[in-house]
């Protein structure tokens, strides 16, 4: 089977763009509903269930309301940037999805269509570049509002982005070393070949990536740019109607793309576990599913039902991360600002650096021993990673890390004891 080409390629690509964009925006709308419902259930409430069956029309009602509301803009705001802010934050969040492969290639009478909008050779770099662009929308919006709370939120957002983008990128380096390239489709293929999803051989990178992604997405426990209790609603304090809604769509689109990305990088993308039939990749113009003992390629058999199944697998994995995001948000309290910085600079970045050394060394040893890239290769890395993760969690759990103000008091022991005595004498 040949790859689709010519006019058919153009039509297929346009169809994929339309379908993906619509699906992403639709999912975003329903993630807001899911978030509100799950939050309600976790808090023994019922959540929005009035508009339509089970509240299913609630996102539409919300959208309609936001479109019809009055657009206000503060008198002292910088109007141009005030309008630019929401647009800039929405754009990167939706565009990132273009490089995420969402199913196995689909055979059509005109050739095989890759189930990815744009199979960029620089996949991960594109994602990193665009995801850091997202903060510009927040910073511009917060600054242009001419409001101290919005400005503080924007400031926090940029500081947080700078700190956690490093940890995010560094945790990705481990993935890149194991995958050997930066294309997302090939990463899925490499995970299929390894027989291990990268979440296991690179467990610590997975953990660090998830934490950094939470911080990058400004989700609890890192939602300092919003921080309702301190900053009203942070960077979008002055926004109303659809511009306000656009910040929210951006946040949820970011959540969705981040989830899809984590599924692709660490949970094998659209790969169905324990099944070789869905493994497919273009090698030298042919779609292969693997190699036999002599190294000769085995041709893959793409089928529409395989595409459907892998799409379902991808959706399930992405939903898992979306659920994780929501679950964490409605459980953990917000970090204090210095704790976020502390965690980012003094924990995440050194750990990620040390982990790169560890994984790099292990890969070097495995390659020197001529271990074939496969199950055993993954098993060794998994063992190493699990030890590293265990150590990391153990250290984190001993409260060397998030002590905050109390930790400072404890370190200057005499002062702490004096404070204790004062409290005791007051009683």
């Amino acid at each position, binding site marked *: 089977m040949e790859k689709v080409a010519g006019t058919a390629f153009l039509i297929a690509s346009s169809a994929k763009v339309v379908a993906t964009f619509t699906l992403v925006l639709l999912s975003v709308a329903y993630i807001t509903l899911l978030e509100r419902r*799950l939050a309600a*259930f*976790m*808090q*023994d*409430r*019922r959540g929005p269930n009035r508009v339509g069956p089970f509240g299913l029309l609630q996102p539409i009602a919300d959208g309609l309301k936001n479109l019809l509301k009055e657009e206000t803009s503060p008198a002292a705001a910088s109007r141009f940037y005030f309008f630019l802010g929401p647009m800039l934050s929405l754009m990167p969040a939706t565009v990132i999805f273009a490089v995420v492969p969402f199913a196995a290639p689909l055979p059509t009478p005109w050739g095989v269509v890759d189930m990815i909008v744009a199979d960029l050779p620089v996949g991960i770099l594109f994602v990193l570049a665009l995801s850091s662009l997202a903060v510009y929308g927040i910073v511009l919006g917060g600054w242009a509002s001419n409001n101290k709370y919005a400005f503080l939120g924007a400031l926090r957002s940029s500081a947080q982005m700078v700190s956690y983008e490093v940890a995010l990128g560094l945790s990705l380096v481990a993935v890149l070393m194991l995958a050997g390239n930066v294309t997302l489709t090939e990463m899925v293929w490499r995970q299929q070949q390894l027989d291990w999803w990268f979440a296991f051989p690179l467990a610590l990178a997975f953990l660090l990536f998830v934490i950094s992604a939470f911080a990058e997405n400004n989700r609890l426990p890192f939602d300092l740019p919003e921080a309702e209790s301190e900053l009203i609603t942070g960077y979008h304090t002055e926004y109303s109607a659809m511009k306000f809604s656009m910040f929210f769509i951006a946040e949820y689109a970011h959540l969705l793309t981040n989830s899809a990305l984590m599924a692709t990088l660490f949970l094998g993308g659209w790969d169905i576990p324990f099944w070789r039939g869905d493994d497919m990749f273009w090698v030298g113009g042919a779609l292969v599913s693997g190699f036999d003992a002599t190294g000769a390629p085995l041709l893959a058999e793409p089928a529409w039902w395989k595409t459907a199944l892998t799409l379902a697998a991808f959706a399930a994995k992405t939903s898992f991360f979306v659920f994780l995001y929501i*679950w*964490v948000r*409605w*459980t*953990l309290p917000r970090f204090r600002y210095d704790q976020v910085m502390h965690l980012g600079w003094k924990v995440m970045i050194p750990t990620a650096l040390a982990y790169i050394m560890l994984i790099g060394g292990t890969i070097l040893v495995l390659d020197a021993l001529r271990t074939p890239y496969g199950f055993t290769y993954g098993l060794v890395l998994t063992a190493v990673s699990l030890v590293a993760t265990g150590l990391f*969690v153990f250290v*984190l*759990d*001993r*409260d060397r*890390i*998030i*002590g905050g103000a*109390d*930790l400072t*008091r*404890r370190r200057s022991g005499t002062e*702490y004891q004096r404070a204790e005595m004062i409290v005791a004498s007051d009683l």
Partner: protein
Amino acid sequence: MTRPEPGRASYVRAALKGMALTFRHLVNPHKVTYQYPEERYPLSPRWRGTHRMEVHADGRPKCVACGLCPTVCPANCIRLVGGEDDNGNRYPIVYEIDEFRCIFCGMCQEVCPVEAIHVGQHYENAEYSRDRFVYDLDRLMAQDHPVTHLWDPSDPRTE
């Protein structure tokens, strides 16, 4: 409540514990919310809400215009103009209650010698304009919700 020793709190374990708790509530929510328009909170027999004027079998109000309720009313929300018919029976010409001013203390019902005016077990009295909140005699007589028991007849201690 026991708090961990200062600086000894474990973040990872505490976070996991919290996640477990929220997940338990997610799969087994203790739903306590009433689905309001369909499901209603059971009112106490002593709930004091919107007023109601009791009516004789022939449709006349039971009120004898004695003037006790406007006198006792602490919010001064009852307006009563009494009249007398040819047989010497007193009756209200004007009887108005401003439900906006009313504090629903129920003293009008307590003081009424002929058990005419009552507070009732009813609370959904929203209106589109303020003047609609002044209930006149016809409107008070037209109310059909159950009236309040100011005390529980089966329990003498409450009297």
